[in-house]
């Protein structure tokens, strides 16, 4: 972390920020927009996929919009929509969404300092910390003249908007499509295959990935399609902890990781 960043998170930086907040908000709003353009493309596409998926399940238009706005965690939202059409399993849903999103715990750990001293903006920044928003806020420094807090705030806000807009748009598109076409819901499978492969290409050791698949398949066979979620999650966490001596030095690939990170 550079000196200037650290300065900003100290109390002195805080009072400075207060003094110049008004003028900097507009400049930060403008500066943040171009940075989010790649995310706009990705979120509109995935958001539309999500809206189409919700429609294919038979959910009405406000579900994708409300879920996109309030949950705001791509992959977990697909799973949630899937659960809404099944039986009432609150504990399974809670555990599963928590574990799917557990990676955010580590984003938070990386942002402890960056979000320090930002007042109410900090709450929204924490709420809106998706994979992509985290990557940008973590990696990109605000340009000269822009306020760090406002810059991150607007990046988060734009991305949030793309996602909700995509979900709403997707439902409308789904409304025009379905009825005639089967199999649209495969977008969710394709999404997770892509996320899985992206992680696979980044990792040097594939034991955790293989364990995830193998243990879940075993739990589906043992406990059935309705009840495998909690046993799988528990088995995965347990076995990863047991294998810690073996997997301790598991890391990302030395060379490829940086580039892969940037591409996302």
């Amino acid at each position, binding site marked *: 972390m550079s000196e200037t960043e650290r300065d900003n998170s100290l109390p002195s930086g805080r009072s400075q920020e207060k003094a110049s907040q008004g003028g900097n908000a507009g400049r930060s709003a403008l500066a943040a927009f171009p940075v989010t353009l790649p995310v706009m493309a990705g979120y509109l596409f995935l958001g539309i996929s999500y809206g189409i998926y919700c429609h294919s399940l038979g959910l009405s238009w406000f579900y994708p919009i409300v879920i996109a706005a309030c*949950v705001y965690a791509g992959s977990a939202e697909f799973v949630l929509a899937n659960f809404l059409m099944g039986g009432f399993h609150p504990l399974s849903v809670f555990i599963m969404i928590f574990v799917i999103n557990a990676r955010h715990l580590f984003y938070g*750990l990386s942002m402890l300092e960056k979000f320090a001293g930002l007042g109410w903006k900090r709450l929204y920044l924490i709420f809106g910390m998706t994979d992509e928003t985290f990557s940008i806020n973590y990696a990109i420094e605000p340009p000269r003249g822009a306020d760090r807090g406002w810059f991150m705030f607007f990046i988060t806000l734009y991305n949030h908007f793309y996602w909700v807009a995509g979900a709403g748009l997707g439902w409308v598109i789904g409304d025009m499509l379905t009825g005639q076409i089967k199999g649209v819901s495969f977008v969710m*499978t394709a999404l997770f295959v892509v996320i899985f*492969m992206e*992680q696979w290409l980044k990792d040097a050791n594939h034991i955790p990935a293989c364990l995830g698949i193998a243990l*879940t398949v075993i739990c589906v066979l043992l406990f059935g399609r309705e009840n495998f979620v909690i046993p799988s999650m528990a088995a995965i966490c347990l076995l990863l902890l047991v294998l810690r001596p073996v997997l301790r030095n598991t890391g990302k690939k030395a060379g490829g990781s940086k580039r892969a990170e940037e591409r996302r």
Partner: protein
Amino acid sequence: MNGEQQAVIIVLAVAATLLTRAIPFIIFPEGKERPQTVLYLGRVLPAAVFGFLVVFCLKDTDFTAGAYGVPEMLSAAVTAAVHVLLRNMMVSIASGSLLYIVLVNFVTG
């Protein structure tokens, strides 16, 4: 599931998501040491969870009748292969999904 139960499920999902994002800020105020076990799980858990999710998506595939799961397996494999080749999320998702839609609508019916 009725409307109230759906609302409960959505609220739980919001709470679970929010927790994963907020916990570090609650339990690790700046500068506090982070336990090694937490850091270890952070490295190995994502890959395993993504594997879980792939299986979760395919859980309703019928391997004993109909098309014997061929459209699902083939489309998932194509999605993965396209992604390894081009490393473009949108192209990978679109090609795998389109293949699946073509297979179940026009081929295996």
